[in-house]
Protein backbone atom coordinates (compact mmCIF):
# COMPACT_ATOMS: atom_id res chain seq x y z
CA UNK A 1 0.00 0.00 0.00
CA UNK A 2 2.72 2.37 1.05
CA UNK A 3 4.67 1.43 -2.08
CA UNK A 4 1.82 2.31 -4.44
CA UNK A 5 1.38 5.57 -2.60
CA UNK A 6 5.06 6.43 -3.11
CA UNK A 7 5.00 5.50 -6.79
CA UNK A 8 1.95 7.67 -7.49
CA UNK A 9 3.48 10.50 -5.50
CA UNK A 10 6.62 10.19 -7.58
CA UNK A 11 4.58 10.57 -10.76
CA UNK A 12 2.74 13.53 -9.30
CA UNK A 13 5.87 15.31 -8.11
CA UNK A 14 7.15 16.63 -11.47
CA UNK A 15 3.64 17.76 -12.39
CA UNK A 16 3.18 19.80 -9.23
CA UNK A 17 6.72 21.15 -9.58
CA UNK A 18 5.98 22.20 -13.16
CA UNK A 19 2.75 23.95 -12.15
CA UNK A 20 4.54 25.70 -9.29
CA UNK A 21 7.28 26.99 -11.60
CA UNK A 22 4.75 28.04 -14.22
CA UNK A 23 2.74 30.00 -11.69
CA UNK A 24 5.94 31.59 -10.39
CA UNK A 25 6.94 32.67 -13.88
CA UNK A 26 3.48 34.02 -14.67
CA UNK A 27 3.42 36.00 -11.42
CA UNK A 28 6.80 37.43 -12.32
CA UNK A 29 5.45 38.38 -15.76
CA UNK A 30 2.50 40.08 -14.11
CA UNK A 31 4.74 41.98 -11.68
CA UNK A 32 6.99 43.03 -14.57
CA UNK A 33 4.02 44.23 -16.63
CA UNK A 34 2.60 46.22 -13.71
CA UNK A 35 5.94 47.92 -13.16
CA UNK A 36 6.56 48.49 -16.87
CA UNK A 37 5.75 52.25 -16.92
CA UNK A 38 8.33 52.98 -14.23
CA UNK A 39 11.12 51.63 -16.39
CA UNK A 40 10.45 54.01 -19.23
CA UNK A 41 11.25 56.84 -16.84
CA UNK A 42 14.75 55.37 -16.53
CA UNK A 43 15.71 54.50 -20.12
CA UNK A 44 19.38 54.45 -19.14
CA UNK A 45 18.84 51.20 -17.24
CA UNK A 46 17.30 49.56 -20.31
CA UNK A 47 20.14 50.77 -22.53
CA UNK A 48 22.61 49.18 -20.12
CA UNK A 49 20.77 45.86 -20.28
CA UNK A 50 20.65 45.98 -24.09
CA UNK A 51 24.39 46.52 -23.97
CA UNK A 52 25.07 43.58 -21.68
CA UNK A 53 22.68 41.10 -23.24
CA UNK A 54 22.47 42.37 -26.82
CA UNK A 55 25.68 44.06 -27.91
CA UNK A 56 27.84 41.47 -26.20
CA UNK A 57 26.01 38.67 -28.05
CA UNK A 58 26.52 40.14 -31.52
CA UNK A 59 29.68 38.21 -32.31
CA UNK A 60 28.37 34.76 -31.39
CA UNK A 61 25.09 35.46 -33.20
CA UNK A 62 26.70 36.65 -36.42
CA UNK A 63 29.28 33.86 -36.52
CA UNK A 64 26.68 31.17 -35.75
CA UNK A 65 24.29 32.64 -38.31
CA UNK A 66 26.98 32.64 -40.96
CA UNK A 67 27.85 28.99 -40.33
CA UNK A 68 24.22 27.88 -40.17
CA UNK A 69 23.62 29.64 -43.48
CA UNK A 70 26.63 27.91 -45.03
CA UNK A 71 25.42 24.50 -43.82
CA UNK A 72 21.96 25.19 -45.22
CA UNK A 73 23.59 26.21 -48.48
CA UNK A 74 25.63 23.01 -48.68
CA UNK A 75 22.81 20.65 -47.75
CA UNK A 76 20.30 22.51 -49.88
CA UNK A 77 22.63 22.43 -52.86
CA UNK A 78 23.26 18.69 -52.51
CA UNK A 79 19.54 17.91 -52.28
CA UNK A 80 18.31 20.35 -54.91
CA UNK A 81 20.93 19.17 -57.36
CA UNK A 82 19.16 15.81 -57.60
CA UNK A 83 16.00 17.51 -58.83
CA UNK A 84 17.83 19.92 -61.06
CA UNK A 85 16.49 22.92 -59.24
CA UNK A 86 19.60 24.44 -57.63
CA UNK A 87 18.23 27.85 -58.57
CA UNK A 88 15.81 27.40 -55.65
CA UNK A 89 18.74 27.49 -53.21
CA UNK A 90 18.21 31.13 -52.26
CA UNK A 91 14.61 30.59 -51.29
CA UNK A 92 15.42 27.39 -49.38
CA UNK A 93 18.05 29.17 -47.30
CA UNK A 94 15.99 32.30 -46.72
CA UNK A 95 12.75 30.53 -45.83
CA UNK A 96 14.41 28.09 -43.43
CA UNK A 97 16.22 30.92 -41.69
CA UNK A 98 13.43 33.47 -41.55
CA UNK A 99 10.70 31.11 -40.48
CA UNK A 100 12.41 28.71 -38.09
CA UNK A 101 16.14 28.59 -37.58
CA UNK A 102 16.68 32.32 -37.19
CA UNK A 103 14.28 32.95 -34.31
CA UNK A 104 14.84 29.57 -32.61
CA UNK A 105 18.63 29.44 -32.73
CA UNK A 106 18.94 33.11 -31.80
CA UNK A 107 16.78 32.51 -28.74
CA UNK A 108 18.74 29.43 -27.70
CA UNK A 109 22.10 31.17 -28.21
CA UNK A 110 20.76 34.17 -26.33
CA UNK A 111 19.72 31.89 -23.46
CA UNK A 112 23.20 30.39 -23.33
CA UNK A 113 25.07 33.66 -23.73
CA UNK A 114 22.93 36.26 -21.94
CA UNK A 115 20.23 34.30 -20.11
CA UNK A 116 22.70 32.32 -18.04
CA UNK A 117 24.46 35.59 -17.20
CA UNK A 118 21.21 37.15 -16.04
CA UNK A 119 20.47 34.15 -13.81
CA UNK A 120 23.96 34.17 -12.32
CA UNK A 121 23.83 37.91 -11.71
CA UNK A 122 20.47 37.82 -9.94
CA UNK A 123 21.39 34.67 -8.03
CA UNK A 124 24.61 36.26 -6.78
CA UNK A 125 22.85 39.53 -5.95
CA UNK A 126 20.53 37.46 -3.81
CA UNK A 127 23.34 35.44 -2.25
CA UNK A 128 25.27 38.58 -1.31
CA UNK A 129 22.15 40.27 0.13
CA UNK A 130 22.17 42.95 -2.58
CA UNK A 131 18.49 42.47 -3.35
CA UNK A 132 17.65 42.64 0.33
CA UNK A 133 19.76 45.77 0.74
CA UNK A 134 17.90 47.31 -2.17
CA UNK A 135 14.49 46.65 -0.70
CA UNK A 136 15.61 47.99 2.70
CA UNK A 137 16.59 51.16 0.85
CA UNK A 138 12.95 51.34 -0.29
CA UNK A 139 13.81 50.47 -3.89
CA UNK A 140 11.88 47.59 -5.40
CA UNK A 141 14.24 45.03 -6.98
CA UNK A 142 11.47 44.19 -9.44
CA UNK A 143 11.42 47.76 -10.73
CA UNK A 144 15.11 48.45 -10.53
CA UNK A 145 16.61 45.11 -11.61
CA UNK A 146 14.01 42.83 -13.19
CA UNK A 147 11.95 45.08 -15.45
CA UNK A 148 14.92 46.69 -17.26
CA UNK A 149 16.33 43.21 -17.97
CA UNK A 150 12.92 42.12 -19.19
CA UNK A 151 12.53 45.05 -21.61
CA UNK A 152 16.16 44.77 -22.68
CA UNK A 153 15.57 41.14 -23.63
CA UNK A 154 12.41 41.88 -25.59
CA UNK A 155 14.24 44.55 -27.59
CA UNK A 156 17.53 42.70 -28.03
CA UNK A 157 16.33 39.28 -29.21
CA UNK A 158 14.43 40.35 -32.38
CA UNK A 159 17.34 42.61 -33.32
CA UNK A 160 19.77 39.75 -32.82
CA UNK A 161 17.50 37.49 -34.88
CA UNK A 162 17.66 40.02 -37.72
CA UNK A 163 21.46 39.93 -37.53
CA UNK A 164 21.40 36.12 -37.45
CA UNK A 165 19.13 35.89 -40.51
CA UNK A 166 21.18 38.37 -42.49
CA UNK A 167 24.44 36.64 -41.64
CA UNK A 168 22.83 33.29 -42.52
CA UNK A 169 21.57 34.45 -45.90
CA UNK A 170 25.02 35.79 -46.74
CA UNK A 171 26.48 32.47 -45.57
CA UNK A 172 24.15 30.67 -47.97
CA UNK A 173 25.09 33.17 -50.67
CA UNK A 174 28.74 32.47 -50.03
CA UNK A 175 28.29 28.71 -50.49
CA UNK A 176 25.85 28.92 -53.41
CA UNK A 177 27.20 31.79 -55.44
CA UNK A 178 30.86 32.05 -54.46
CA UNK A 179 31.71 28.36 -54.02
CA UNK A 180 29.26 26.59 -56.35
CA UNK A 181 29.13 29.36 -58.94
CA UNK A 182 25.35 29.64 -59.08
CA UNK A 183 23.95 32.65 -60.87
CA UNK A 184 23.63 35.34 -58.23
CA UNK A 185 20.66 36.93 -59.99
CA UNK A 186 18.73 33.66 -59.80
CA UNK A 187 19.73 33.27 -56.15
CA UNK A 188 18.23 36.61 -55.18
CA UNK A 189 15.22 36.58 -57.48
CA UNK A 190 14.13 33.08 -56.46
CA UNK A 191 14.45 34.20 -52.88
CA UNK A 192 12.41 37.33 -53.44
CA UNK A 193 9.80 35.31 -55.27
CA UNK A 194 9.11 32.93 -52.43
CA UNK A 195 9.68 35.08 -49.35
CA UNK A 196 6.83 37.36 -48.36
CA UNK A 197 7.36 40.30 -46.06
CA UNK A 198 4.21 39.63 -44.09
CA UNK A 199 4.26 35.85 -43.80
CA UNK A 200 7.93 35.32 -43.31
CA UNK A 201 9.76 38.43 -42.15
CA UNK A 202 7.13 39.92 -39.85
CA UNK A 203 6.09 36.56 -38.40
CA UNK A 204 9.75 35.80 -37.73
CA UNK A 205 10.08 39.05 -35.80
CA UNK A 206 6.95 38.29 -33.79
CA UNK A 207 8.29 34.83 -33.02
CA UNK A 208 11.63 36.11 -31.79
CA UNK A 209 9.98 38.77 -29.62
CA UNK A 210 7.95 36.05 -27.91
CA UNK A 211 11.10 33.94 -27.48
CA UNK A 212 12.89 36.97 -26.05
CA UNK A 213 10.18 37.41 -23.41
CA UNK A 214 10.24 33.69 -22.60
CA UNK A 215 13.99 33.35 -22.23
CA UNK A 216 14.39 36.52 -20.18
CA UNK A 217 11.53 35.55 -17.88
CA UNK A 218 12.98 32.09 -17.29
CA UNK A 219 16.45 33.54 -16.65
CA UNK A 220 15.18 36.08 -14.15
CA UNK A 221 12.93 33.55 -12.42
CA UNK A 222 15.71 31.00 -12.06
CA UNK A 223 17.96 33.69 -10.60
CA UNK A 224 15.27 34.58 -8.09
CA UNK A 225 14.65 31.03 -6.89
CA UNK A 226 18.32 30.03 -6.90
CA UNK A 227 19.65 28.82 -3.56
CA UNK A 228 22.02 31.53 -2.31
CA UNK A 229 25.10 29.32 -2.54
CA UNK A 230 27.75 28.76 -5.21
CA UNK A 231 26.20 25.39 -6.07
CA UNK A 232 22.68 26.81 -6.12
CA UNK A 233 23.64 29.57 -8.56
CA UNK A 234 25.48 27.18 -10.86
CA UNK A 235 22.50 24.79 -10.88
CA UNK A 236 20.20 27.69 -11.64
CA UNK A 237 22.23 28.80 -14.68
CA UNK A 238 22.13 25.26 -16.03
CA UNK A 239 18.38 25.11 -15.50
CA UNK A 240 18.00 28.44 -17.32
CA UNK A 241 19.69 27.14 -20.45
CA UNK A 242 17.90 23.78 -20.41
CA UNK A 243 14.41 25.03 -19.74
CA UNK A 244 14.83 28.01 -22.08
CA UNK A 245 15.82 25.71 -24.92
CA UNK A 246 12.91 23.35 -24.24
CA UNK A 247 10.36 26.15 -23.91
CA UNK A 248 11.59 27.86 -27.07
CA UNK A 249 11.32 24.66 -29.10
CA UNK A 250 7.87 23.83 -27.73
CA UNK A 251 6.63 27.40 -28.23
CA UNK A 252 8.05 27.39 -31.74
CA UNK A 253 5.88 24.41 -32.62
CA UNK A 254 2.77 26.14 -31.30
CA UNK A 255 3.59 29.44 -33.01
CA UNK A 256 4.36 27.74 -36.32
CA UNK A 257 1.05 25.87 -36.15
CA UNK A 258 -0.75 29.17 -35.54
CA UNK A 259 1.12 31.31 -38.06
CA UNK A 260 1.87 29.34 -41.19
Amino acid sequence: MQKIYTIIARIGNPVTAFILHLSGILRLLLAALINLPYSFLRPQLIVKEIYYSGVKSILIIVVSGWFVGMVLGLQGYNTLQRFGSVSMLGSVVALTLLRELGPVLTAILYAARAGSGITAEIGLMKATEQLEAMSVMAVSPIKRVIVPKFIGGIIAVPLLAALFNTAGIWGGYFVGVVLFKLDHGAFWSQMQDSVSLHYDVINGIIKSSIFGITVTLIAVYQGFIAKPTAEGVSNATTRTVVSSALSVLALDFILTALMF
Partner: protein
Amino acid sequence: MKRLTIDFLVGVFVLLAIICLGFLSINVATNSGFGNEAKQSYTLYANFNNIGSLKVAAPVKVSGFVVGRVVNISLDQHSYQAVVTMEINDKYKFTTDSSAQILTTGLLGEQYIALQSGADTEYLKNGDTITITSSAMVLENLIGKFMTNMSSK
Protein backbone atom coordinates in the same frame (compact mmCIF):
# COMPACT_ATOMS: atom_id res chain seq x y z
CA MET B 1 32.67 51.37 -18.88
CA LYS B 2 31.62 54.96 -19.52
CA ARG B 3 27.99 55.66 -20.11
CA LEU B 4 28.67 57.37 -23.42
CA THR B 5 30.56 54.33 -24.72
CA ILE B 6 27.67 52.05 -23.79
CA ASP B 7 25.20 54.40 -25.49
CA PHE B 8 27.37 54.48 -28.58
CA LEU B 9 27.71 50.69 -28.81
CA VAL B 10 24.00 50.15 -28.25
CA GLY B 11 23.35 52.72 -30.95
CA VAL B 12 25.63 50.86 -33.34
CA PHE B 13 23.83 47.61 -32.49
CA VAL B 14 20.38 49.07 -33.14
CA LEU B 15 21.46 50.72 -36.41
CA LEU B 16 23.08 47.48 -37.57
CA ALA B 17 19.92 45.54 -36.77
CA ILE B 18 17.77 48.11 -38.59
CA ILE B 19 20.01 47.82 -41.66
CA CYS B 20 19.61 44.03 -41.46
CA LEU B 21 15.84 44.35 -41.15
CA GLY B 22 15.85 46.66 -44.14
CA PHE B 23 17.93 44.14 -46.08
CA LEU B 24 15.56 41.33 -45.09
CA SER B 25 12.42 43.23 -46.06
CA ILE B 26 13.70 44.85 -49.26
CA ASN B 27 16.31 42.53 -50.70
CA VAL B 28 15.03 39.19 -49.45
CA ALA B 29 11.27 39.52 -49.34
CA THR B 30 9.02 40.69 -52.15
CA ASN B 31 7.75 44.18 -51.59
CA SER B 32 4.15 43.32 -52.30
CA GLY B 33 2.01 41.53 -49.81
CA PHE B 34 1.88 43.82 -46.85
CA GLY B 35 0.25 47.12 -45.97
CA ASN B 36 0.97 49.33 -48.95
CA GLU B 37 -0.88 46.99 -51.27
CA ALA B 38 -4.19 48.80 -50.92
CA LYS B 39 -2.77 52.03 -52.28
CA GLN B 40 -0.53 50.87 -55.06
CA SER B 41 -2.46 47.99 -56.53
CA TYR B 42 -5.79 47.16 -58.10
CA THR B 43 -7.96 44.09 -57.99
CA LEU B 44 -8.78 41.74 -60.84
CA TYR B 45 -10.91 38.61 -60.83
CA ALA B 46 -10.67 35.50 -62.94
CA ASN B 47 -12.94 32.45 -63.06
CA PHE B 48 -11.42 29.04 -63.54
CA ASN B 49 -12.99 25.64 -64.05
CA ASN B 50 -10.19 24.06 -62.10
CA ILE B 51 -7.51 25.79 -60.11
CA GLY B 52 -5.52 22.66 -59.29
CA SER B 53 -3.51 23.38 -56.16
CA LEU B 54 -3.28 27.15 -56.57
CA LYS B 55 -2.94 28.82 -53.17
CA VAL B 56 -3.45 32.24 -51.69
CA ALA B 57 -0.26 34.35 -52.03
CA ALA B 58 0.73 32.57 -55.24
CA PRO B 59 2.43 34.96 -57.67
CA VAL B 60 0.81 36.45 -60.75
CA LYS B 61 3.34 36.64 -63.55
CA VAL B 62 3.67 38.13 -66.99
CA SER B 63 6.40 36.54 -69.08
CA GLY B 64 7.75 35.13 -65.84
CA PHE B 65 7.90 38.52 -64.15
CA VAL B 66 5.91 38.93 -60.91
CA VAL B 67 3.28 41.68 -61.22
CA GLY B 68 0.97 40.73 -58.35
CA ARG B 69 -0.36 38.06 -56.01
CA VAL B 70 -3.42 35.93 -55.44
CA VAL B 71 -5.18 37.30 -52.37
CA ASN B 72 -8.36 35.22 -52.24
CA ILE B 73 -9.90 32.11 -53.73
CA SER B 74 -13.63 31.45 -53.47
CA LEU B 75 -16.34 29.45 -55.18
CA ASP B 76 -19.11 30.93 -57.34
CA GLN B 77 -22.29 29.27 -56.02
CA HIS B 78 -24.09 29.43 -59.39
CA SER B 79 -21.53 28.42 -61.94
CA TYR B 80 -19.46 26.24 -59.60
CA GLN B 81 -16.35 27.94 -60.87
CA ALA B 82 -13.48 29.03 -58.68
CA VAL B 83 -13.15 32.82 -58.41
CA VAL B 84 -9.56 33.94 -57.95
CA THR B 85 -8.96 37.46 -56.63
CA MET B 86 -5.65 39.01 -57.65
CA GLU B 87 -3.92 42.17 -56.52
CA ILE B 88 -1.97 43.65 -59.42
CA ASN B 89 0.64 46.37 -59.10
CA ASP B 90 -0.65 49.74 -60.36
CA LYS B 91 2.29 50.13 -62.68
CA TYR B 92 1.10 47.35 -64.96
CA LYS B 93 -1.99 47.64 -67.18
CA PHE B 94 -3.65 44.85 -69.11
CA THR B 95 -6.02 44.93 -72.05
CA THR B 96 -9.60 43.74 -71.69
CA ASP B 97 -8.95 40.72 -73.85
CA SER B 98 -6.08 39.50 -71.63
CA SER B 99 -6.04 35.83 -70.75
CA ALA B 100 -5.15 34.08 -67.50
CA GLN B 101 -3.64 30.65 -67.23
CA ILE B 102 -2.62 28.52 -64.26
CA LEU B 103 0.88 27.15 -64.75
CA THR B 104 3.37 25.25 -62.66
CA THR B 105 6.97 26.15 -61.97
CA GLY B 106 8.90 23.09 -63.06
CA LEU B 107 7.29 19.69 -62.96
CA LEU B 108 6.43 19.60 -59.26
CA GLY B 109 6.79 23.26 -58.29
CA GLU B 110 4.26 25.76 -57.03
CA GLN B 111 1.40 26.89 -59.22
CA TYR B 112 1.06 30.48 -60.37
CA ILE B 113 -1.14 32.56 -62.67
CA ALA B 114 0.32 33.67 -65.95
CA LEU B 115 -1.30 36.67 -67.63
CA GLN B 116 -1.09 37.25 -71.34
CA SER B 117 -1.99 40.63 -72.76
CA GLY B 118 -4.18 40.89 -75.86
CA ALA B 119 -4.52 43.41 -78.67
CA ASP B 120 -7.46 45.49 -77.41
CA THR B 121 -7.06 49.20 -76.87
CA GLU B 122 -9.01 49.35 -73.61
CA TYR B 123 -7.46 48.40 -70.29
CA LEU B 124 -8.89 46.37 -67.42
CA LYS B 125 -9.98 48.50 -64.47
CA ASN B 126 -10.11 47.81 -60.76
CA GLY B 127 -12.71 45.07 -60.07
CA ASP B 128 -12.90 43.76 -63.65
CA THR B 129 -12.96 40.07 -64.43
CA ILE B 130 -10.69 38.29 -66.89
CA THR B 131 -12.93 36.13 -69.03
CA ILE B 132 -10.45 34.19 -71.10
CA THR B 133 -8.97 31.60 -68.78
CA SER B 134 -7.49 28.17 -69.04
CA SER B 135 -7.48 25.87 -66.04
CA ALA B 136 -4.69 24.20 -64.22
CA MET B 137 -3.14 21.16 -65.74
CA VAL B 138 -4.17 18.22 -63.58
CA LEU B 139 -1.90 15.25 -63.89
CA GLU B 140 -4.69 12.66 -63.48
CA ASN B 141 -6.80 14.15 -66.30
CA LEU B 142 -3.74 14.29 -68.51
CA ILE B 143 -2.93 10.65 -67.87
CA GLY B 144 -6.61 9.77 -68.40
CA LYS B 145 -6.65 11.49 -71.80
CA PHE B 146 -3.44 9.83 -72.76
CA MET B 147 -4.83 6.41 -71.82
CA THR B 148 -8.07 6.85 -73.83
CA ASN B 149 -6.09 8.05 -76.81
CA MET B 150 -3.91 5.01 -76.56
CA SER B 151 -6.80 2.56 -76.30
CA SER B 152 -8.76 4.11 -79.20
CA LYS B 153 -5.85 3.63 -81.54
